[in-house]
């Protein structure tokens, strides 16, 4: 079953064609990494799939449903969730409130006005589960802005996962983290259930090769090549434009 299908997608900003005629299809349960040099259109592609802004041309299908013209908040109903490259959470709210808001987003009572949030036990039980699993339970009453950067990145990931997405778009989940923190976060991502399809934009090649089951290389807004991690690291053109050196193992860090 195909989770995400993108057909001939185009998006320009002024004179720059950020995404140019991109087509790709991602199987359900797949871990798809999107890599490419700076300005290759990776984040734009993710934003288009997430619905942050409309595409100029082309179609986006999620589990066979056309969502091309749906605004971002309507795509959640099809199981799409995302995280941001620049941590985008509620810094002035507590960790618990952040997670509660994320879980509440898909609940039927999310618009309820005259009943306190705390009567909805299922919210709190799920929040407790997430916070325990991600080792943030002790810090649940701290404001997110008081957390360390690495912990804020974890909150960002929980926010993506909290709505039980079928498709999770991860925009550089390890950006700005130390190598050890990156590896730790990569492990957490690898452990995510296979019922979640991952689309991940990432610069850290260690992370990419430890997570991805398939890789798409973007170059100036177009798909350069697509294949398994082995095929990609063997591909001479990829090395030239992106990895930037002739390393037969392909496992070293790229630009």
């Amino acid at each position, binding site marked *: 079953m195909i989770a995400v299908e993108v057909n001939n997608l185009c998006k320009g900003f002024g004179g720059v064609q950020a995404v140019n005629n991109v087509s790709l299809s991602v199987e359900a349960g797949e871990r798809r990494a999107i890599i490419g040099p700076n300005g290759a259109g990776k984040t734009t592609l993710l934003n288009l799939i*997430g619905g*942050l802004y409309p595409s100029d041309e082309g179609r986006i299908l999620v589990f066979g449903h056309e969502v091309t013209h749906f*605004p*971002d*908040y*309507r*795509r*959640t*109903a099809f199981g799409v*969730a*995302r995280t*941001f490259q620049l941590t*985008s*959470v*509620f*810094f*002035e*709210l*507590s960790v*618990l*409130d952040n997670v*509660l*808001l*994320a879980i*509440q*987003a*898909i*609940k039927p*009572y*999310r*618009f*309820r*006005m*005259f*009943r*306190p*949030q*705390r009567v*909805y*036990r299922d919210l*709190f*039980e799920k929040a*407790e589960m997430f916070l325990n699993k991600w080792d943030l339970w002790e810090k*649940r*009453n701290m*404001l997110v802005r008081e957390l360390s950067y690495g912990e804020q990145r974890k909150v960002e990931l929980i*926010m993506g996962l909290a*709505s039980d997405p079928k498709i999770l778009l991860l925009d550089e989940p390890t950006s700005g983290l130390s190598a050890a923190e990156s590896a730790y976060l990569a492990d957490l991502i690898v452990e995510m259930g296979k019922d979640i399809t991952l689309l991940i934009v990432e610069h850290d090649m260690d992370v990419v090769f430890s997570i991805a089951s398939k890789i798409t290389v973007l170059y100036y807004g177009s798909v350069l090549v697509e294949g398994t991690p082995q095929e990609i690291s063997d591909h001479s053109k990829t090395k030239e434009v992106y990895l930037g050196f002739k390393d037969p193992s392909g496992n070293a860090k790229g630009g």
Partner: protein
Amino acid sequence: MITLSLRGEGKKYIHYFLIIAAIAILLCLPKVLSIYGVTLLTEIFIYSIFSMSLNLLVGYLGYTSLGHATFFGVGGYALALLALKAGIQNFFFCIAATLMVGAAFGFLLGLITMTVSGIYFLVITLATGQVFWAVVWSWRSFTGGDDGLSGISRPILFAFGHRWPFSNEITFYYLIFIFFILCLFLIYLIVKSPFGCALLGIRNNEMRMRALGYHTWRYKYFCYVMAGIFGSLAGALKVYQDCFINASCASITQSGLVLLMVVIGGSRVFLGPVIGAFVIQIIANIVSSYTEYWSTIMGVALILSVMFFPEGIAGYVVRKVKPKGNNH
């Protein structure tokens, strides 16, 4: 179970005790205060409802409105016109009708004002507020303009086979007190509800809320409408108190005054606007009996409070008592 320990809510009993003590004191106050004091306190309750309604927008949603007096005027005129032109005296009917008119205006105006945010929202609410005021001011045959409408009588309730007049200041105080407690309770429910929590999320980061799947415009729109409904209720109650209404109730001065109450009291604390309403009304009423330059003193007080207590009186107190600073 887990939810009880989740936010450290063990101190709840102190809160209940404080609430009951405050209600008891406010119930007894008319016995000790002069009639002037009772009237002043009644006015403070009405302005508290008004400023709390504005705080839904300012404090919870993060949208600063400079036209909230429009709803005060809508509620006031709806009531006055019902009583004078239609001759309807039934208290419950009048209040219900006022709320509905307030909601209708909220739904209508929200379509215009809620298309923008930030400084543009401030400007557009100022503009719509001025338009409303200008209409009220110049449509003399309908609204009385600057001379206003007078002759509205205090409400009389027919309930449980009895006739309950609220004509004197003491009985009227208790009536308004009931409304105050009711609004306090309802607005508290709103801000603690899933809806209210979502408003805080929108104030913090609207893009993230959309990415999570919230139709944020709907939340903002309904927040505006709720603020309008409670605001128009305050306007109607004020007309009952004064037995009079004129165009100044919807003026920019009124909008500025209620915004001042929210800012001085503290928009990020639930009871902040109530404290603000109290402080401003005390200054306006007591200082004005000593000097005619009372608005100058108010201006100086505002400057000092913004300089030294940018988070308002309540915000300052909460920060001192609870260093964590998580008030909501």
